[in-house]
């Protein structure tokens, strides 16, 4: 790391801290204005420490530590996201590489994409006969669209120059896929995955409110029933932080695979 990028990351860190201070300030202001009806940062911090003192306790199906809740949500999100990606990537490659495929599949995608994934929940229940399966199912549906669209777009935008190399030197289909199509579209695919995991992480909270059981979304709902706004605020902060980390992770992946920047 040279001194320039070191300076850069120090200033970025300072801005991040500043930004957090602004958030806490505004939050405190809201607390004062609502006469403590919305718990302030200090009260929330105390509840946070309390929850974190034993994050993985397990006292029966409806009483588990916040760590357990978070892990269950993450497992669900990654299962659904994985299943969605396994479907979306090959389908996207197919869609992008043939004009007919694109014209045939694109209207379907355009109609289904704007539908809230929660609308699929009853169908998931019907198919899996269990809330757990239905939740993973809606996450899968959620993760489908951004990956599918970005993959298809990536493949469809392979420049003729690259395709011509394959033609001129008689690449087999396999060679074309592995040496031209995939390397070119991987950055696009990762962009799709990054968007997908972002939406999936948003949808899981709502999904778990519907399904119940263990999970960070259920934890929010449960805290509301227990009238603990502090716990809800803790959950919101944790959800936000995990979402940020997921995004950063995929961002790093994106940078690792973008040959242009090297």
């Amino acid at each position, binding site marked *: 790391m040279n001194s320039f990028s070191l300076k850069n990351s120090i200033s970025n860190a300072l801005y991040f801290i500043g930004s957090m201070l602004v958030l806490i300030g505004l939050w405190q202001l809201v607390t004062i204005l609502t006469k403590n009806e919305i718990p302030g940062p200090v009260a929330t911090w105390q509840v946070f420490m309390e929850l974190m003192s034993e994050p993985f306790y397990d006292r029966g199906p409806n009483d588990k530590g916040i760590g357990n809740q978070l892990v269950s949500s993450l497992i669900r999100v990654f299962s659904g996201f994985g299943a969605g990606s396994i479907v979306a990537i090959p389908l996207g490659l197919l869609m992008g590489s043939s004009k007919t495929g694109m014209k045939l599949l694109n209207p379907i995608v355009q109609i289904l994409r704007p539908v809230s994934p929660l609308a699929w929940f009853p169908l998931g229940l019907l198919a899996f006969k269990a809330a757990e399966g239905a939740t993973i199912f809606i996450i899968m549906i959620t993760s489908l669209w951004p990956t599918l669209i970005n993959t298809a777009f990536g493949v469809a935008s392979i420049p003729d120059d690259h395709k011509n190399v394959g033609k001129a030197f008689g690449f087999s289909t396999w060679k074309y896929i592995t040496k031209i199509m995939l390397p070119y579209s991987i950055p696009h695919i990762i962009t799709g995955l990054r968007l997908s995991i972002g939406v999936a992480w948003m949808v899981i909270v709502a999904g778990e409110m519907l399904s119940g059981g263990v999970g960070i979304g259920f934890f929010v709902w449960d805290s509301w029933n227990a009238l603990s706004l502090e716990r809800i605020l803790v959950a919101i902060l944790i959800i936000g932080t995990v979402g940020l980390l997921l995004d950063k992770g995929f961002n790093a992946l994106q940078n690792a695979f973008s*040959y*242009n920047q090297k």
Partner: protein
Amino acid sequence: MNTSNKSLNLVDSANDFHKINSRETAISINNVEVSFSTPKGKFTAVKDISLDIKRGEIISLIGHSGCGKSTLMNTISGMVLPTSGEVIANDKVVKGPGPDRGIVFQNYSLLPWMSVYKNIFVAVDSVFKNKSTDEKHAIVNHYIEMVNLTSHKDKLPSQLSGGMKQRVAIARAFAINPSILLLDEPFGALDALTKGSMHIELLKLWNLDNRNKTIVMVTHDIEEAIFLSDKVVVMNNGPAATIKKIVDVNLERPRNKKAIAHDPEYIRIHDELLGLLFDKFSIED
């Protein structure tokens, strides 16, 4: 003419049995027209093109920018199919690209995610399916050496200069040992010195194969065209460009770059080509 110049850098060893006129046809372009459909309607790039190229000939295409040189080349490579007429290469009607015709694209067309080495290897690997991996690596190394890029072989195209990219594209086209080489401004981005040594490499390669390789080259460089070619095809300006004239270059091979410049025949051809290219222009001052 060149006995006195034997000590200079002689390019080709004299191969007296090389008699172009007795050779078979390698490429036959019959009445080719190429039109593109554009948002503004049909655009005819070239038309009424007929040209026979014999095996072992080196042909240059020259003409003003946009007249359709690349388009015509692409009908031989099979990247563009004629709207009417046909192109026959190696006794087969061209229906698409094939490894019997090696191409150096005008814009290099290297794969940006692969190193110099891999860009060439992937082509060699694709064309020589029956060779062992060791043999393929040897071929790649040989041609990287030929274009003087051995110390840059692990670089990505984005880390290369324009001339270096061009040399990778040349090495890649040569490495698959095609019987027809199609070069679209292959030396355009090179400095005079590198260009000179690439000319020699090109002729060496041609000699190595007993002058059996047919080479079609697009160039803007009149001296280069005369030095390398047996015929120079001058094209009219587009749209709907046709062949203006085919100028024979009857200069004995091996040719010597320095000596040839004083040859009266060379000077005559040079003037003729200049006249063909610039007849409409006069400098007003």
